[in-house]
């Protein structure tokens, strides 16, 4: 799961770079050439890619937590196996993305420490609670669905090592999405109680999915580094629109209602009314919809979401609990190969 939309990425295309090299670099990117690790690149690009890959990696391993809570409660052997494998995939994606980041110059341990001490961020959507089994279905259907859309565009980016990792990750996301779709379909073909549970989970996750892509980009996004350097290739609003076009009609067909909701500070829905704005514009093929609560988005991203503290505490607990194992394997008796 997850994506890399980091809304507050500081990027400074500095003037200290050799202007000729910079121009050549930017021309290559404009021509659609991919950058490989050995190529010349501006410092700001290297730092930006590191920040993006690190944020993405953090999101994968924090993203393993909400779903991880339900492995012990999965309601059949097959679901238990699937959920374990799914969460394991997130850990695997985290591991691969940390490797991309390590090659850009930051150690794994430094990244894990910065994450658990709150110096670096992870994707906002994991700061919401998953109080029922239907939330797991929604995370895999909506959030993984959103993540695939986002990551498909990231795989069209310009940084070769990130692109090749993204392609590999996307291959596995198809399983996550299909498994989520299967769960949602099963629940919505089930008992009234299951349907109710599913609608409630949908109400919790629909606005989070809309926020998934991040707030609207600045009007000149195309000329600013993240897009100019093809670190990202599509505007957040455009991805969000594609998401709604795909999922709003599917939800309706399943018998789910797209609601506009208010939530309390624990992330639970306090009111839900059908989204009056939701309709298909036949001319454009686009569905109009009510925007999520962006004030809430900023509140959560600043650390005041329903689960921020719990997610970080668990991550820190795991990091500290495993410290002795890492010390053990780095402490001496192991041999490293000689230099070539």
């Amino acid at each position: 799961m997850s994506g890399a939309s980091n809304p507050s990425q500081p990027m400074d295309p500095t003037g200290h770079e050799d202007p000729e090299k910079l121009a050549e670099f930017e021309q290559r990117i404009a021509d659609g050439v991919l950058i490989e690790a050995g190529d010349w690149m501006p410092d700001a690009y290297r730092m930006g890619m590191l920040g993006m890959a690190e944020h993405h990696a953090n999101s994968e391993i924090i993203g393993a937590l909400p779903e991880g809570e339900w492995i012990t409660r999965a309601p059949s052997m097959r679901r238990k196996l699937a959920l374990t494998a799914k969460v394991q995939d997130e850990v695997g994606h985290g591991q691969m993305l940390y490797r991309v980041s390590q090659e850009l110059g930051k150690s794994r341990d430094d990244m894990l420490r910065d994450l658990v001490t709150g110096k670096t961020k992870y994707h906002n959507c994991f700061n919401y609670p998953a109080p029922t089994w239907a939330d797991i279905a929604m995370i895999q259907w909506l959030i993984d669905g959103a993540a695939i859309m986002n990551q498909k565009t990231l795989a069209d980016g310009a940084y070769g090592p990130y692109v090749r990792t993204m392609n590999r990750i996307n291959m596995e996301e198809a399983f996550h999405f299909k498994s989520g779709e299967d769960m949602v379909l099963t629940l919505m073909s089930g008992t009234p109680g299951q349907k109710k549970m599913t609608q409630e989970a949908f109400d919790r996750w629909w606005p989070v999915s809309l926020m998934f892509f991040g707030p609207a980009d600045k009007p000149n996004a195309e000329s600013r580094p993240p897009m100019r350097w093809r670190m990202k290739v599509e505007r957040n609003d455009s991805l969000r629109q594609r998401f709604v076009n795909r999922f709003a009609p599917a939800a309706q067909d399943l018998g789910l209602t797209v609601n506009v909701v208010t939530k309390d500070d624990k992330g639970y829905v306090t009111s839900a009314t059908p989204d009056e704005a939701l309709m298909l514009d036949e001319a454009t093929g686009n569905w109009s919809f009510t925007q999520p609560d962006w004030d809430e988005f900023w509140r959560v991203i600043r650390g005041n979401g329903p689960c921020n503290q719990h997610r970080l505490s668990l991550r820190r607990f795991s990091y500290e609990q495993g410290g002795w194992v890492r010390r053990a394997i780095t402490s001496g008796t192991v041999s490293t190969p000689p230099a070539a």
Partner: protein
Amino acid sequence: MSKIREQLIQHEGDLAPGTPDTEHWIVYTQKKPEARFRWAGSLNAPDLELALQFSSEHYGLDEACVAILTHHARFAHDGPCGFEPLEAGDSAGDDGTSWCVFGLPRRGGNLELLGTINAPDSTEAIARGTTAYANGRIVQFRVVPEEHITISDGRGGLIWRLHDMNYKFAKGYSKGVREKWTRIRDAETYEDYRKEDIHKHF
């Protein structure tokens, strides 16, 4: 949820000192016998024994494969990455030790094992590799001394599992999803939706 996820033991104070990253290993997998080994990913492990375990338990189970190739990143020697496919050179010879030659078919693509070549050093191995394998289809070469390559082909222990692993692949859900959707939508609408899913939306 399990107790531990709810009732966390909070360690007091600052974090204990960190640990250095362990060694960096690169992993390639072979999907079918005779197929080329292709780059799968990389990982950290303190030594070869753990590197091999980690590579088979992660990359060996991501998609069906019959063998896994692992080497320490330190032994990889990369030639420059071209913007256009490289032309074959004229370096040739059969002296020196054996090197595995990997080629990158395009920028952002995956390295593939093309074969082996003898050469006295890495520079010459890249040059001879280019002569032998460039063929206008490779943008970058990597050479690794064959003695530092380890291939696990399942003979020393299983890689791909024997139990049904459909639960962890999309194909394991396709039939069920189709059946459930077609109870809601007709088969044709579902088919359009599925195709559109792949081509347009995802």
